[in-house]
């Protein structure tokens, strides 16, 4: 939970609503895992006031990358950060994904910017020689980020959008069942949509496939102190409240209580 200043290498718009930032992480000593996040100051000035959480999109030798959706004031300000300036971050934070080296194929179900969280996992899968199938859902084709990146990793990518009328849950379910027929899926990972998370949870349940989900919650401290970011997970003893920033953001898909 240390604060770092990482030199910004580039910060560029990659589609109408998304931006991509590369920072020099060579001075970071702690290891970074897919699914972890940084708590980032979005501007060089004092406002917006609170930090914003962003997943690590790609982890490279001496750089890391973020992919972000321009949503409100914070992300708007972030687009003004320039190469050469320092990015003020706290992290890496939270618990990342667990990926079994012996897995044959994993399935990623990402909605919108959820892919920013799952992409690093796809990258790890490649490195571990685990195959990857991915469903990318978005409002429009313009929002289908990272499809090329994933394909570059050798992943089998399915794209669905509102624009094409292909993103309804029923259609996604059909695609998933097709994938399951053709592959031995050893893990389901999802991020970015409550509807698709429920679907993934049901399918994981039905097929007895372990799964994980990366959650988002509004955060205060992002270091486990304030209890702003809670969600519920099922335990043997009942439902337990956990902190997305500390015990998550990645949770067992089976155990998480989707509100």
């Amino acid at each position, binding site marked *: *939970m*240390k*604060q770092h200043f990482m030199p910004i290498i580039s910060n560029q718009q990659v589609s109408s609503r998304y931006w991509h930032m590369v920072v020099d992480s060579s001075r970071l000593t702690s290891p970074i895992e897919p699914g972890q996040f940084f708590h980032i*100051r979005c501007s060089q000035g*004092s*406002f*917006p*006031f*609170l*930090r914003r959480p962003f997943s690590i999109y790609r982890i490279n030798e001496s750089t890391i990358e973020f992919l972000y959706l321009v949503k409100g004031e914070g992300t708007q300000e972030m687009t003004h950060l320039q190469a050469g300036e320092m990015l003020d971050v*706290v992290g890496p934070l939270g618990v990342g994904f667990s990926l079994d080296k012996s897995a044959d194929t994993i399935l990623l179900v990402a909605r919108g910017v959820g892919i920013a969280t799952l992409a690093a996992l796809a990258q790890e899968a490649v490195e571990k020689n685990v195959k990857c199938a991915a469903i990318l859902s978005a409002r429009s084709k313009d929002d289908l980020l990272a499809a090329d990146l994933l394909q570059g990793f050798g992943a089998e990518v399915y794209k669905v959008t509102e624009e094409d009328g292909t993103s309804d849950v029923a259609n996604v379910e059909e695609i998933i069942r097709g994938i399951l027929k053709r592959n031995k899926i050893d893990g389901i990972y999802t991020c970015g949509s409550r509807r698709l998370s429920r679907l993934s949870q049901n399918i994981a349940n039905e097929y007895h496939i372990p799964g994980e989900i990366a959650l988002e*919650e*509004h*955060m*205060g*401290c*992002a*270091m*486990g*102190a*304030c*209890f*702003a*970011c*809670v*969600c519920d997970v099922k335990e043997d003893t009942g439902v337990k*409240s956990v902190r997305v920033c*500390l015990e998550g953001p990645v949770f067992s898909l089976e155990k998480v209580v989707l509100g």
Partner: protein
Amino acid sequence: MIAQLNTEIVIGSLKLKNPIMPASGAFGPEMKDAIDFNELGALVPKSITRLPQPGNRTPRVCETTAGMINSIGIQSKGLDYYMKYTIPEFAAYSAPLISSISADSVDEFAEMSEVIGNHPDVDALELNISCPNLKGNGEAFGMNAEVTESLIQAVKNVTDVPLIAKLTPNVTSIQDIALAAEAGGATALNVANTLLAMAIDTESRRPLIGNIMGGFSGPAVKPVIVRMIYQVSQVTNLPIIGCGGIMNGKDALEMIIAGASAVQVGTASFIYPTAMPDILEEIKDYMKRHAIYDINELVGSIQVD
């Protein structure tokens, strides 16, 4: 020879090696990776309730201009867990432990204070009288002078540790409540808890906080808190702990000059994990620059004419 700086502050039997401590609810054991707890004036864990309680629905925080609103709802593991795990965890540090207590009735405050206050590792109690009095009409204890006085009195009867009354700023006259707390036997006053506030997302027309309203903290509130510290310092001789909106050493000094003997830092730590030690350094720099070698000389040193 370089003159030594004295940053020690005494509050009743409580000796703080410096005036900087965390604000309850904005501090936890997880922060030990970021800062050295032994360098703090005191440790103040999140308010504890007698029984475990789940807290409020999310979203529990939202940002406003230069501030934030929170409505955590005192998510708590209850008194037993607190005695067994929380106190020992914090007792491992040399900084004194101030336990913050939230309760639903005067009796419950007394009951909990007796248990917690008599634990040898607890150095003081902070009574969070900003929570709603369920036996009253639901208004906060600290909104009513008589209730405040009898609450502090009841707690005073069951424990000898210093009692810090954490006042709510949502009152017509903070002086009246301060005097009531003094009459009840408070050792010190925390000025103050959060301002009650609300924000709405105009697009969805929904409150930005799951619980509709919440407590407002951060730099936006500081001018109200500084005013209250000054007002309270004019009417009582009790030491004041200033709290609300401190982001840097200058803000802490503003409260000290207004009349606070010590200060608590909450929201700032969310943004700068090292806010507390940084603030202490800035205060020391200020003292050196102004050749003030004892922090106590700064307390209430405002010049008005």
